[in-house]
């Protein structure tokens, strides 16, 4: 038993199954979040492995989406939110005073529950918007990125002949993959996914899940989901949130087969939530 496990800090015993020394994409310490006067996250501390998939599960309202939004400072867009604690991305504090949230979001991409292709833009424009609005005009660079991103999102073969079509003309699953392509076109280091499959049919869901696994090669992925099977199928590690607290975090296999907490056990066996 080493004491370098990502799950242990500060109170849990470590887990020997996992890669104990791996580099961390995120190191989170004592994260507290308030909406107005209501506290929605309590003392969250965890490490997130580099280029692994972390699934966050928990009943609705447990704070998992809030937690996700704290990782790229998206929560700052909601009125009345206050954050305390430390979140380090690749060893650097993202809540430091001199850090530009735009640059953080550039490094930590996000995919939302509802697929959100920009309705006024074509498929191509949707993928390239992040680069174009950053002022990149280099045509060959953009074309290369376009194909690369769409291929990575497993969408290239389906749309390569109609890149000029509006993004909203695609099917639900394709739209979500388009959003993933759009997020990876700016080459972030981390992808946050907020229930990306919850609005999709089973076939589209399977495609996206496959895609998520394949993206692990290049990205650290944090996946919020209410679908336990999805967490089991795709992730390397799983964290269970309840009532704004991190109850348990472990390798997915361990957490699903041999949870340490009674709450976790109740949740994964479907006794509540």
């Amino acid at each position: 038993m080493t004491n370098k496990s990502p799950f242990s800090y500060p109170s849990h015993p470590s887990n020997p199954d996992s890669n104990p020394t791996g580099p961390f994409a995120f190191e989170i310490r004592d994260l507290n979040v308030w909406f107005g006067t209501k506290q929605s996250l309590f003392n969250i501390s965890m490490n997130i492995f580099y280029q692994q998939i972390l699934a966050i599960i928990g009943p609705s309202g447990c704070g998992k989406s809030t937690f996700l939004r704290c990782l790229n400072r998206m929560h700052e867009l909601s009125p009345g939110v206050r954050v305390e604690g430390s979140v380090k991305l690749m060893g650097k504090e993202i809540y430091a005073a001199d850090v530009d949230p735009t640059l953080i979001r550039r490094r930590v991409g996000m995919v939302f529950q509802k697929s959100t292709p920009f309705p006024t833009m074509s498929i191509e424009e949707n993928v390239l918007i992040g680069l174009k609005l950053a002022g990149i005009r280099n045509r060959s660079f953009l074309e290369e990125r376009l194909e690369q991103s769409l291929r990575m999102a497993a969408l290239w073969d389906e749309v390569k002949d109609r890149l000029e079509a509006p993004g909203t003309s695609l099917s639900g699953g394709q739209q979500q993959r388009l959003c993933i392509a759009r997020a990876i076109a700016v080459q972030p280091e981390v992808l946050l996914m907020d229930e990306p499959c919850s609005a999709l049919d089973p076939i589209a869901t399977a495609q996206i899940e496959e895609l998520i696994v394949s993206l692990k090669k290049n990205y650290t992925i944090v996946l919020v989901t209410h679908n336990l099977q999805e967490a089991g199928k795709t992730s390397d590690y799983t964290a269970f949130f309840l009532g704004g607290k991190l109850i348990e975090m472990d390798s997915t296999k361990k957490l699903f087969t041999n949870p340490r907490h009674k709450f976790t056990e109740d949740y994964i066996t479907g006794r509540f939530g």
Partner: protein
Amino acid sequence: MGRMLFSSQHNTANNDPFERALANRGQKFKENIFTLLVYCCAFTLPTLLVFAAYELTTKCMPTVSKFGISFLFNHDWNPVSGHFGALPFLYGTAMSSGLSLLIASFLGLGTALFLTEFSPRWIQKPLIILIQIISAIPSVVWGLWALFELIPWLQKYVVPFLKDHLGFLPFFQGNFYGVSMLSGSLVVAIMILPIMISVTIEMIKSVPSIYKEAVFALGSTHWESIRIGVLPFIKKGLLGVAILGLGRAIGEAMAVTMVIGNKPEISLSLLSPAYTLSSVLANEFAESTSELHISALYEIALLLGAITIVVNLLAQLFIHGLEPLDFTKLFGKENQKKNLS
């Protein structure tokens, strides 16, 4: 993908055009300029309002110090002799807007009910479009129409009828020369009708039909289903619509100026000419020369502004509930819920 495993140091940053573009300080600068611009534009209106309040209050000081509160109760308005009292205008504005509101609210509600509930379907859409077209007609055109169409019609048919049958009432005494309180109120009533009807129709349509159907299911008549299943839900809104119409009626200048007669006299008879706050401004402001006259007109402008502001605030209060102007609170709450889930 040629990315380094640990990109935290961004060793590769400068080779990537995207990284370079984002790190560009000019970007941040442009962002700040834009934000500054947005703030400047947004605070143009509040700043101007403060200036407006200052302008009106300082410029009316001479009359305020000379006449004080009696300005409001004096019915003598004579720029030549230097006597100024606003009572005829206050009376004219109150009477004409009150009368037009009375006419317009009953006709408006009736029309709105007819167009949503009682009329055959094929007639509804064209009539609603007609009402929308009519609401775009500018004030001065209404004045033109009232001057050359409405007044002759009143003179020929309506007034003789009123005099024959209701001539004993104080409202229909005296001679009718065309330009009068009656003509002014009628044209204002017609002008405020389209907007009142449109808003009322919107409100009736916004009531979920299950209530009406539930009442229907109890064996009620069509009217009863509306009285019980629709009207109670929009009571406050109807009041709001009426106040909205009142605000418009009070502020209306051109059409009224053209037909109300412009005589600063107080008469109970609807057939005699009158004067309103806005029409005295329209008529005399450009021609006033003496300091006191100008100041008196500024005080009238201030009165008019204050009255319409109060009336509009009341309308907001009734249409949007007890917290006026507070849409964001609603939206904010909704967002918070979304974020929490």
